[in-house]
């Protein structure tokens, strides 16, 4: 009976002393052990490492459910996502999927999706956000003058075109050496040059003139700043204009070889044709070749030989010699 009692007593001790308060023990510390008036239990197993492990294993913080579950469908989205931001799956209420996967596998969802986070999103520029921001910006804009709606009016009042470029890039510096390049375009009719001035102007300008559009293009990049290049281009324009209007003395020494077009009056054709027309004539009155013939010869020499020009020349010669 004593043994039974002892056994019972022992078991009761064992059960009760599990719930003991042990401030300085090095045994296993349970939550239950903080109840007072209980005996301690001796645990001879290795618990130091486990205690440290358990201490290191921090419980994951209790996270509330994702925010998008509490979002109303008619909320102000521009208040939720006011500026450019990396994708945040718990804030965006869209069921997005992103990523390449091999066959028969589902595309990864939005949580912990690096691909979705890497790519720049435009969630801060939704249509209502754009219209709101543009409304705020409208007061800084001015309307285009109605008179200048058509290109002809623009050309008439503002013939000079000043073309320049600005660069936006993600570098440590905001400077870009290419932004110093300046182009000035101008239609030559605006300068009202006479025949000699235009000829001289075109010689000075060379390749910068486009015959089809009658447009002069000046590109300057020799100075380090845009403003300097613009000033230089305008100086060039002024200098060209004034220089082409001046006639130098040595320009009178222009030879036939320097002529850029065929002028009938300066050439052998005039001499021979008048000679033929006035062959062995004794009268003082000289017959001049007709204007039609002159024109046909000039077009032949200036434009080149083609069927039309040759036929025209043939007709004019027959007419002139009176052979028809």
């Amino acid at each position, binding site marked *: 009976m004593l043994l039974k009692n002892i056994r019972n007593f022992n078991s009761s001790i064992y059960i009760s002393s599990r719930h003991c308060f042990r401030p300085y023990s090095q045994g296993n510390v349970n939550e239950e052990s903080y109840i007072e008036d209980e005996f301690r239990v001796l645990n001879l197993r290795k618990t130091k490492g486990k205690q440290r492990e358990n201490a290191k294993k921090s419980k994951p913080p209790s996270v509330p459910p994702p925010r998008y579950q509490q979002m109303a469908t008619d909320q102000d989205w521009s208040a939720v996502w006011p500026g450019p931001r990396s994708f945040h799956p718990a804030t965006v209420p869209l069921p997005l999927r992103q990523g390449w996967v091999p066959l028969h596998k589902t595309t990864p969802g939005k949580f912990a999706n690096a691909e979705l986070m890497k790519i720049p999103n435009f969630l801060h520029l939704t249509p209502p956000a754009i219209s709101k921001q543009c409304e705020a910006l409208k007061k800084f804009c001015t309307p285009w003058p109605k008179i200048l709606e058509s290109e002809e009016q623009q050309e008439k009042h503002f013939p*000079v075109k000043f073309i320049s470029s600005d660069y936006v890039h993600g570098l440590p510096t905001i400077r870009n050496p290419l932004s110093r390049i300046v182009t000035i375009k101008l239609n030559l009719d605006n300068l009202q040059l006479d025949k000699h001035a235009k000829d001289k102007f075109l010689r000075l300008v060379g390749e910068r003139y486009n015959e089809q559009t009658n447009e002069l293009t000046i590109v300057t990049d020799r100075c380090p700043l845009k403003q300097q290049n613009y000033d230089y281009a305008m100086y060039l324009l002024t200098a060209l204009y004034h220089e082409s209007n001046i006639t130098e003395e040595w320009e009178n020494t222009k030879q036939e070889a320097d002529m850029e077009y065929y002028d009938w009056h300066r050439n052998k054709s005039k001499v021979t044709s008048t000679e033929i027309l006035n062959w062995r004539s004794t009268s003082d009155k000289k017959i001049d070749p007709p204007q039609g013939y002159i024109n046909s010869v000039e077009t032949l020499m200036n434009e080149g030989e083609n069927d039309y020009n040759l036929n025209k020349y043939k007709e004019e010669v027959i007419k002139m010699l009176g052979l028809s």
Partner: protein
Amino acid sequence: MNILQKINSIIPASSKRIFSQNYLRLFSSTITQPQTIGENEIAVPQKDKLYSRLEIELKGIEPEVMRSYAWYAQKSAEHLGIKIGRCYAARKSEKDRWTVLKSVHVHAKHLVSYEARTYYRFMNFHNLTQSTLETFLEYIQRNLPEGTAMKATKIEIQPLPEHIVKSIEENAK
């Protein structure tokens, strides 16, 4: 003595005390006349320049990002009343390819090729004034996404310089 201390000394303790965070407001007045700093006066506002065309060239690594950005730019141009011209993208990207040796030393038979793809996109806007252009460009450029660069070409229309106009008139006489 501090201004606040002066106020407190003037107002008797029995009356209500007025505490204003910005005490300067109590003593400031709106300036209605233009200030003259010495002999110089405030500059007259300049005339708005006129731009017949603004061409934006986008250079980027992600064509879809650039597509979204172009949509945003055109939408904001619509809102600001800017005339939208031809907007298009290059069909194919420009590819920079270079082939180098794989190994630091020897093994010239084994090479590796690298490639960098650049995608291009263009947008044209017509008939903008200086204020509109600067506002629009700043708004667009602040929202330029990562991996995209922009080149903004502005065609400004100007009258003939005055000295040339004078010379033309003199020559005409």
